[in-house]
């Protein structure tokens, strides 16, 4: 029934790969939803750039404390074991390789692992935030993205055309159509929507999909 996964469904899929006790940073926007879909029995510890480790979900409206926010400036809550720290310590966690997983949005991803997700070009006010830091240091840097742009052009490319966030940094892509690893400078297809043939998926992808082993059906609950 799904021609493509919704952002919520991509978040669900991404959540399945996060292990119990993993330290995870979720990018602003859609990736934040990943926290809601942790499989039963697993509890990741979420890091936010602005200096909290182990925060909880959003408070009820009206119960926000605006000193207790995440990097997206949304209110969060305390949990037993939360810790506060300053920005240099926070990015020591990022840059120093202490995060297990970072999940970011993407404008474009290249088969080399290059990521473009901070600037759509010279127009507008540029803003980078923590994206260029997050692509370095986390053991797994995954992106969550529609497989194609709104006008149908591939977002998975041989080379990025937009300004880069980082070089050779992405290790896995959770797209609206497939799960793809980046290995040895190639897109390695792991899972795809069963409704889509390999040829159809390849036609929507801007670089060759390598298929070294069985491709698992990407099946995600209606959410």
């Amino acid at each position, binding site marked *: 029934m799904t021609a493509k996964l919704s952002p919520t469904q991509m978040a669900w899929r991404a959540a399945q790969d996060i292990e119990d006790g993993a330290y995870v940073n979720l990018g602003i926007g859609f990736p934040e939803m990943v926290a809601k879909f942790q499989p039963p029995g697993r509890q990741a510890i979420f890091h*936010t*750039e*602005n*200096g*909290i480790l182990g925060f909880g979900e959003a408070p009820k409206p009206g119960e*926000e*404390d*605006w*000193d*207790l*926010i995440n990097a997206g*400036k949304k209110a969060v809550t305390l949990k037993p074991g939360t810790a*506060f*720290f*300053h*920005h*240099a310590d*926070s*990015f020591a966690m*990022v*840059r120093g390789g202490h995060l297990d997983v970072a999940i970011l949005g993407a404008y474009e991803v290249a088969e080399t692992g*290059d990521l473009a997700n901070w*600037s759509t070009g010279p127009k507008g*006010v*540029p*803003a*980078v*935030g*923590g*994206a*260029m*830091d997050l692509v*370095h*240091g986390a053991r797994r840097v995954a992106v969550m993205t529609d497989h194609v742009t709104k006008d149908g052009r591939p977002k998975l490319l041989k080379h990025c055309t937009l*300004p*880069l*966030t*980082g*070089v050779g940094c992405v290790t896995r892509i959770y797209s609206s159509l497939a799960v793809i690893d980046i290995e040895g400078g190639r897109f390695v297809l792991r899972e795809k929507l069963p409704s889509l043939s390999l040829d159809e998926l390849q036609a929507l992808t801007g670089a060759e999909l390598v298929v070294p082993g069985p491709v698992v059906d990407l099946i995600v609950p209606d959410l």
Partner: protein
Amino acid sequence: MDKAVADLATAVAGIEDGMTVMIGGFGGSGGPIELIHALIDRYLATGHPKNLTVINNNAGNGHVGLAALIEQGMVKKLICSFPRSADPVVFTERYRAGEIELELVPQGTLAERIRAGGAGIPAFYTPTSYGTDLAAGKPVEEFEGRPYVRERWLKADYALVKAHVGDRLGNLTYRMAARNFGPLMCMAAKTTVVQVSHLVEPGGIDPEAVVTPGIFVQKVVEVASPAQEEELNRAKAVYPEAK
């Protein structure tokens, strides 16, 4: 020694035209709204300070705090990582009009450059921004086969910071994620001015719980019930109220 000053006007008195001012806060949390507004009051009364270079993570939101400082035309240049917000109209208009200069710095690099300024480290290498437009013109060097970009320290004439509890020696604690850039900026400015919600005597803070030791702080002023930027903006507040 007593670093406490009586009022906000005294606290911001030394800031002069052309100075570099670090302002704490991430989005609204930790923004020293009252110190910023005291600086605006002085500008409205005297025409100074102007042509400031401001270092903050963002570029202000709505029409209070840093956004109001920019709206008054007091800021010549902004060094920040993310000049967007729910309501970034003030900065965006000035920027599009070419009236404010922007140096965009990745957030972790911004934090580390400020810490380096405070720690006497003139330059360091980071993997962040390698191969991107933000590394343009910066020296690159390989260590163990991996490329890194060299970044310089950031220092300031003044830092304006909001803390939670402060004693008369300048020892500080912060409140939750309002800590963010505060402890780093305190280290990196010649003169650090801190608004605290609770001013206490020395000994009023557990020595183990001190986040910023007093050596990094020059002036402390008590603002007992500080405004929260997020709440001001939800109420569509504008500073100063009557133009």
